[in-house]
Structures are given as structure tokens and as C-alpha cells.
């Protein structure tokens, strides 16, 4: 099934795009992440221009996070106050990201920067997640439970002024910390087309010290709104959202997400985390190779 993508200006196989969306959706449903960090690189490997890939991937993340958020809303797993602060920061972040995107495109360095951010982020988070889950799996096998980690926020967060109460998160901290976190995730969403869940969740747990019960739901809440903002920002500034590409990705991913979510209930979470960290590290490794390998095309042509 050949599909002509009107914004990317090329023909792709529709089934490949649906399958790609389904794969990412399956993983996102299984692990509770948006999956944007897989969609963008996979689309680029498939030959979609990086800008179009990043712009269209964010609408796929929106779709994947919608169905997830309903379940969390029902359980009361969303801290709206915290989510609101994060989204507020995130919307400014997408604005700043749009400026950065335009600047880097003009300098001709956008692709390199996208690749380097991916390597650093995925590599760092993948490694720490792998170590942590490996310890839990070992503990699970030997039957000796790990000492429970004390929930507390980072000392730097505690030093910020104007504290607010975030009841559902069980926190009394300055809104500046989540504001900055939301801002940074917004920038990343704009540049990479990711929701940022895989940064947001660890940051909420270990930097803000939020209660585990509301972390995933609040992260989904923030992802939903920030990817919406980023889709809009791309539509208005780069004009690179390919709605046909997004449609095919969405069809695959929303279905895959549901199947993945069912599948996840059958597996212990420690193994899930270990598997996710392996996937994250593989993507990072592929990116490192891409950066260091002599590219097939030394020259690139860009319209002025």
C-alpha cells in the first residue's frame, strides 16, 4: 500500500508506517511511556526528513497518551496542581524550543544536535534504569527485598523559595522546580518529538520526590498537553506536521498501546523495566554509531 505523504513529499509503504506505530504503541502501552523516543529515530531511519519526523511524532504521542490518561483519572492518579505547573512551564518550553529549532536549522546543525541529545539522554537514563532494574530483578530472584528508598526531594529543590502545597503528590515545595522541569521537557518535545515521559518520571521520583501513585498519571497529563502544544507550535512555525503520516502512525499506535497495556499486566514490573532499558540503550547505541560512522552522504542540500 503506497501512500504519498504531502508534507514529507515522498511515498512510503502505509503498512510499514502502521506496523511501526503498532510496535511503538505496544511498547508504550506496556511500559507506560509515550514512545516518541522510538518513533522519531525509526521514522528517520525509514527516510522521513528529521523535521517532519519530529513534528509528526508528537501527535502520535498525544494519541497514545489519551487512552492511558482516562484510566489514571478514574483512580485519582493525576495531581492537577502539579500537572498544571508542569504544563505551564512546558508551553513556554515549546516556544523556546521553536526558536532553538529555527536557529539550529539555519546553522545546519539541527540533525547533529538532535542526535547528540538522544545519545546523552537515552544513554544516561537507559544505563541508570538498567542498573536499577537489574538490582531489583536480582533481589526478586534471591528473595531478599531491597531496602526501601526513602522518598525525598533533591536538596536543591528544597532551597527554592515560595513553597506551595501539592496535596496529591504529598509535597510542600517551590513551584519553580516543576516549572523548570516542565520547561526543559517542553524544549525536548519540540526538538525531538518525544513526550519526555522517560525523563519526567525519574525526575518526578528522584528530584521532586513525588508519591509513586500519582507519578505516571501526572506525567501522562503533562505529556498530553505539551505534545498538543508542540504539534500546534510545529504547525505554525515549521509547517512540518504531516497529517497523513500522523494518521497512519496513530492507527497503529493506539491499537498497539491497548494490546501492550493488557500484556503488561501479565509480567512483573522489574522485568518490564529491564527490557525497556535494553531497548533505550539499543536506540542510543544506534545513534552513537550514526554519529561516529562515516555517513553515506557527506554533502546535504538545503533550500535557502
Amino acid at each position, binding site marked *: 500500500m503506497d501512500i504519498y505523504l504531502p*508534507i514529507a513529499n515522498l511515498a512510503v509503504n502505509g503498512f510499514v508506517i502502521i506496523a511501526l506505530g503498532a510496535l511503538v504503541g505496544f511498547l508504550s502501552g506496556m511500559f507506560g511511556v509515550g514512545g516518541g523516543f522510538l518513533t522519531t529515530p525509526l521514522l528517520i531511519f525509514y527516510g522521513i526528513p528529521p523535521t517532519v519526523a519530529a513534528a509528526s511524532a508528537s501527535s502520535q504521542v498525544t494519541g497514545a497518551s489519551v487512552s492511558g490518561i482516562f484510566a489514571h483519572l478514574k483512580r485519582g492518579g493525576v495531581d492537577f496542581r502539579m500537572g498544571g505547573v508542569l504544563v505551564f512551564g512546558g508551553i513556554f518550553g515549546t516556544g523556546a524550543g521553536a526558536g532553538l529549532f529555527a536557529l539550529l536549522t539555519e546553522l545546519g546543525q539541527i540533525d547533529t544536535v538532535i542526535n547528540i541529545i538522544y545519545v546523552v539522554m537515552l544513554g544516561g537514563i537507559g544505563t541508570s534504569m538498567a542498573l536499577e532494574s537489574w538490582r531489583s530483578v536480582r533481589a526478586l530472584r534471591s528473595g531478599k527485598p531491597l531496602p526501601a528508598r526513602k522518598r525525598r526531594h533533591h536538596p536543591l529543590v528544597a532551597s527554592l523559595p515560595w513553597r506551595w502545597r501539592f496535596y496529591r503528590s504529598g509535597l510542600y515545595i517551590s513551584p519553580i522546580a516543576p516549572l523548570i522541569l516542565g520547561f526543559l521537557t517542553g524544549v525536548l518535545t519540540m526538538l525531538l518529538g518525544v513526550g519526555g515521559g522517560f525523563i519526567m518520571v525519574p525526575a518526578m521520583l528522584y528530584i521532586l520526590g513525588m508519591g509513586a501513585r500519582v507519578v505516571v498519571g501526572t506525567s501522562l497529563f503533562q505529556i498530553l498537553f505539551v505534545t498538543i502544544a508542540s*504539534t500546534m507550535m510545529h504547525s505554525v512555525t515549521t509547517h512540518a506536521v504531516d497529517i497523513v503520516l500522523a494518521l497512519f502512525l*496513530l492507527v497503529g499506535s493506539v491499537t498497539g498501546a491497548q494490546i501492550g497495556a493488557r500484556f503488561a499486566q501479565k509480567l512483573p514490573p522489574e522485568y518490564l523495566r529491564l527490557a525497556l532499558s535494553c531497548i533505550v540503550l539499543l536506540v542510543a547505541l544506534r545513534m552513537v554509531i550514526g554519529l561516529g560512522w562515516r555517513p553515506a552522504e557527506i554533502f546535504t542540500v538545503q533550500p535557502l
Partner: protein
Amino acid sequence: MSWRPACALASLLLVGTTAPAAAQQQGQAPILVPDVSQHQIELRSGFTGAELLLFGAIAYPGGRIPDGQIDIVVVIEGPRTPITVREKAKLGGLIWVNAESNSYRTAPSFYAVASSRPIADIMDDREAYVYEIGLKHLQLSPLQVGDTQEQLRFRDGLIATNMADGRFAQSTGSVEISQKLLYSARIAIPASVPEGRYDASTYLVRNGKVQAAEETEVVVAKRGVEQFISLAADRYGFLYGLAAILLSLGLGWLAGVLFQRRQ
């Protein structure tokens, strides 16, 4: 100034007035009657590329077919645009990043040439530069002056990159001439072809000189839904974004509802 812009100017004047016209005045130049299989290439869903057939007849003055070899060259050229070509270099022995760049004012967005024999065998470089026949003879009007070695490297890089993308092509043998009277040439148009008004030119070459040149227009444009989407994305960014957002929200919600029921 470098010689390139001057040469481009000279070629404009030559193509416009002197060369084939002078021969025609003497009443001995053949006339080309060209046509093209389609004047419109529509980019719609399912478009995976097309093949353009350029064909036509050659009419000789007095109906006398001349002795010796004749050659046909066809050129399809997309709209000319300013571009930047960037060259990747290894930074600190570690990663490949874009380093130096060169800009051009008039690079064709698409250029495909087909000839009955290799261009070097048909005409000399001068004639080829005048008519811009062959990738080697394109006038790109570089914006920078100086180091010609570097300019050559970027020029070669631009041509190689565009050839790999299917935007530039040069071939021999896909042009057939029968009885020195009829000709046909096939040119492949890839799926990634840029939009715009294309010039399809046909040249009749004899004794190393272009004896007749004719031009027709081929329009490459998105049509139907693709045209609508592309226009909406460019002109109504906000509404387009809204549509994309509603689509993703709707599909996400729908999948949630459908799968909930099945449980």
C-alpha cells in the same frame, strides 16, 4: 567577478537569439516537432514516481535527410532555487557534523538529461555550457568567490547528493532515433520530485552544434487531498494544527473506548 555569471549571461543571449535562429535564417536548419506524454504530473496518494516520454519528429528543409550522424538530447529541468550545500567533517576525530558550506543562487531543483550518445561525443564543452546540457555544464551561480578547488568539491558534492536522491540524472541510450525522422526519450521522475513548472527541452545536434531547440512545459503539482493538505499546512497553520490535534485525541479516545468494550 568570476567567469561563471558572465558565461551564464552570454548563454542566455545566445540561446535567446543567435544560435539556432542564425541557422534557420539560412533556410537549412531542421525543425523539431516535439511532444511530451503528459504536461501534468499529479502528486496524489499512491504516487510512486512516473515516466515521462518525450517524443517527436524532425522535419528537414526540402525533405532531404542529411548524411552523417544526428543526435537528440532531452532535458527536464525543475524550477531554479537558491540552496545551501553543507559538507560534513569529522569533529575532534569523534563525530560527523556539518562544517563548511557553499551557497548557490540558481540550482535546478530537478535536472534530468538523456542523450542518444554521451554528451562529450556529441558536442564540445563550449556548446554544452551555452545550452547547459549535462550535469557538468550546469550554471549554478555560486554566491562565494575564491578557492576554485573548494568550489569544485562542493559542486561535485551537490551533484552526487542530488543524483543519489534521484533529483539529478544523466543517461545515454534511453533516446531512440528512427530513420533520423522520429525520436523518443524516456525520463524517470521519482516520487520525491519537487513541485513547480518544469521545462522540457529537446535539442537536435549535428556536427557538434545545436541545430534546433524546442521547449515545452510540464507542471508538477499536488492535486486532490494532497494539494488541500499541503496548502492548509502552509497557509492555515493554526487550523491545520488544530485538525492534527483533534485527530490524535479522537483516535486515542476511540481506541480506548473500543478496547474497553471488548473486555
